[in-house]
């Protein structure tokens, strides 16, 4: 297993960005299955490594993990700020595959997951760049972003910088309820996994999102258990979602 710290230039953001990458040591026939793993608000690209045993879980399964930097950008093309969405969903997979030819080029081998802000980002990327990502998992995702500005009105300017005016969020590219609706008939509809703790402040939003995509007929695995918004739960769930990702295709056999 190798851990790579990469600083590479993003044309989209016009600056240097860091990412950490976990790679298996032996080649896979069609390239390594690859998980893009997104961090939460206030964390950075090192959070998953520092707070969980992600490298060990990846080693046990022979998969690659790419942990990009998303700053405080909510994996959006910020209304007033940088285009984090375009970087992560569009440019980064190209950079990674160019630089690391061992990565699988196949959609079915390319997955995305994250916690909190990163859970939202993972669903957003999978729904809006489905040609790249086939499956997405959200752990305690902040899935209802239209509700965020009201939950933290102190940061009104910050939320506007990220998402634009609150009243414009519904139906926008950042509204993953709307994105799920518009993808409902697509052949590239991603397979989805959600977990949220029942004491999490985002639990209600997770239930709303579950009901929404279930009604749209998405392939969804939903799980909940006692717990709040904490790394100990995300660390415990991570090996489980890796196994869930690796089931892809088997259920159709």
């Amino acid at each position, binding site marked *: 297993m190798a851990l790579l*710290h990469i*600083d590479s*230039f993003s044309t989209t953001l*016009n*600056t*240097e*960005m*860091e990412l950490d990458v976990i790679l298996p040591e032996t080649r896979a026939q069609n390239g390594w299955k690859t998980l893009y793993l997104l961090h939460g*608000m*206030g*964390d*950075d690209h*090192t*959070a998953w490594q*520092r707070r969980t045993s992600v490298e060990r879980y990846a080693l046990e399964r022979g998969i690659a993990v790419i942990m990009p930097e998303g*700053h*405080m950008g909510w994996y959006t093309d910020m209304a*007033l*700020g*940088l285009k984090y969405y375009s970087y992560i969903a569009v440019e980064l997979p190209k950079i990674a595959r160019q630089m690391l030819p061992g990565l699988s080029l196949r959609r079915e081998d390319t997955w995305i997951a994250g916690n909190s802000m990163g859970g939202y980002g993972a669903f957003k990327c999978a729904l809006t760049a489905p040609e790249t990502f086939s499956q997405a998992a959200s752990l305690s995702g902040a899935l209802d972003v239209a509700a965020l500005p009201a939950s933290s009105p102190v940061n009104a*300017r910050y939320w506007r*910088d990220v998402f634009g005016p609150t009243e414009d969020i519904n139906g926008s590219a950042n509204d993953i309820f709307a994105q799920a609706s518009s993808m409902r008939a697509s052949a590239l509809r991603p397979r989805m996994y959600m977990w949220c703790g029942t004491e999490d402040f985002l639990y209600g939003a997770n239930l709303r999102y579950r009901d929404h995509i279930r009604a749209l007929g998405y392939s969804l695995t939903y799980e909940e258990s006692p717990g709040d918004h904490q790394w100990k739960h995300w660390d415990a769930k991570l090996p489980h979602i890796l196994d869930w990702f690796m089931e892809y295709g088997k259920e159709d056999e």
Partner: protein
Amino acid sequence: MALIRIGFHSTALGMDTACDVVLPQLPDPDQPARRFPVMLLLHNLTKSHSTWQRMTGIERYAATRGVAVIMPDALLSSYADMIHGGSYFTYIADELLPVMRRFFPLSEKREETMICGASMGGYGALKIGIHRPDTFGVVGSLSSGFTSITTYIGRPDDRGISLEYLTFEQDGLARENADTKRRILSLASSDGPRPRIFMCIGSEDKILLDNTRESRDFFQSIPDHPFDFTYAEYPGGHNWTFWDGHICDFLAFAGYGAHIGTY
């Protein structure tokens, strides 16, 4: 010497951030610990905390002179508290050094505390040094004056949004430039400590030569020349060859001209 990449949570930024640190090592592990002089070294536009290391011999220059180097990340911020973005001025001017001093054996003396950078980093170093004379004893800029210009950050992207707008909104840059000038003049007439200031630039610099000369003229026009101010032009352009070649001139100006070890 050691190269340390440290990630930690910045209160000013509200997020985790990465910083690279070059730390000298004493040749004998039984020697009593000492606190090293420290230089904050700031990157230029479109670069990051890792760029000085990758493009120059900074680790060798600093460690052989017994100077610790702290290289923070400031994104595209112009080292400002961005109106739409992170508070990078506050992070680097007020938070970074106290955090680093908690982790590493760094001098707390202002005369052993330096800040320097190239291009946007030089602008940031001058701005921060001038606003924090109690913290920084020696301030240096390679290839930039103390005012920022709009040529690069003023360019709108495909959505019509410029870095200047994200950072300062309208007129904010002019206000900030004027504020720095006022601050220099008030330092000039104060009884408090004044940083020693070093500036140099390539004589073929096509980007910030006029801007840098303007800052030189401003310092040289202050009556009685209260600042210990050094300005130099050397052959060269606006690039890493120049900055690699002249970062040691700043270290020499700061009093760290001679190697103290062999590497």
